């Protein structure tokens, strides 16, 4: 949105935002901060502010916040709330990305168990060794197993692309991803 050209008030030296009389703006580097976190934090401001984005998704995005109710919402507080939510978004998205293959795997397992294709786990006959009894080798084995599962899932996905290079079987979401 075109805002009225007013002289930007400079925020305190260390603050990563700019305040005008009507808006707060924050410039964020995509490669450093992550597209999803930026959009996620901007999205969460929508109950208190009108949010617009400028720039380039591949390089840097400026998030512009205009309070819905300027009488009760101070611009500085709005900008700082955004930055606080933004830091949390970075953590949330990092955890989400780290765990996506596992979530997908468990969801697939759930379908297979519910449909009777694979049996549910048998009740434990003997107690498992307590955590402190695991040796370094056993711990390394477990971490290797997790890495193998993640690699297997990636291989399955790569095979899927090789078998269907034109993406004929792709879902609508997948075609949008390819377009982007």
């Amino acid at each position, binding site marked *: 949105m075109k805002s009225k050209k007013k002289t930007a008030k400079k925020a305190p030296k260390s603050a990563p935002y700019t305040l005008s009389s009507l808006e707060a703006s924050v410039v964020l580097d995509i490669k450093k901060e992550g597209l999803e976190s930026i*959009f996620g934090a901007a999205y969460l401001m929508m109950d208190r502010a*009108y949010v617009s984005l400028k*720039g380039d998704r591949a390089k840097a995005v400026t998030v512009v916040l205009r309070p819905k109710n300027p009488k009760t919402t101070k611009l500085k507080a709005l900008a700082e709330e955004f930055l606080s939510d933004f830091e949390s978004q970075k953590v949330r998205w990092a955890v989400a990305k780290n765990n996506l293959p596992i*979530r*997908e795997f468990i*969801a697939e397992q759930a379908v297979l168990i519910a449909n009777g294709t694979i049996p549910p786990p048998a009740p434990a006959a003997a107690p498992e060794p307590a955590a402190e009894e695991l040796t370094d080798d056993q711990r390394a084995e477990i971490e290797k197993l997790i890495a193998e599962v993640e690699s297997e899932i990636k291989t399955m996905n790569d095979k899927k692309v090789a078998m269907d290079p034109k993406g004929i079987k792709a879902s609508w979401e997948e075609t949008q991803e390819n377009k982007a």
Partner: protein
Amino acid sequence: MKIELAKKIYSKDSLLIAAQVLSSKLNVYLEESKSAYTVTIEAKRKDVVPAQLAALAGEFGNELLNQEYRFIVGRFNSKISSLIVTQTLMAARGGEAPAAPPAGEATPEFKKLVAELVRNAEAEVARTMPKKIADQGTVLPPVKEQDIV
């Protein structure tokens, strides 16, 4: 009011959806250049003042962001959400063809019972229907949008 939207930020899909979502409050006109969309918004209500139009423009921007971020999240979780949607629809479907009525419903006794139930019900409806019938009017008209401006 004109709004410039960078193509490197916003997609046409989200523009079209946002325009549809807010279509009860706004008329939205779209022009495009190589790098940007220029959106002209016009409030449907004639008595809107500039501050209210600015708020509507803000709502439009928020809805754009809502759609764009929804696409991002949808793509990210697409495998899981597709699995859930497909699973629930397939399970609910129950099969490729509707099941045939059970054999118990084909018996003469069952058909006789049903015919009797229908007869009794229709007789009771005729007997108990109100004597005076009001004008058989139309359903209520759609509620008019109370614009939040």
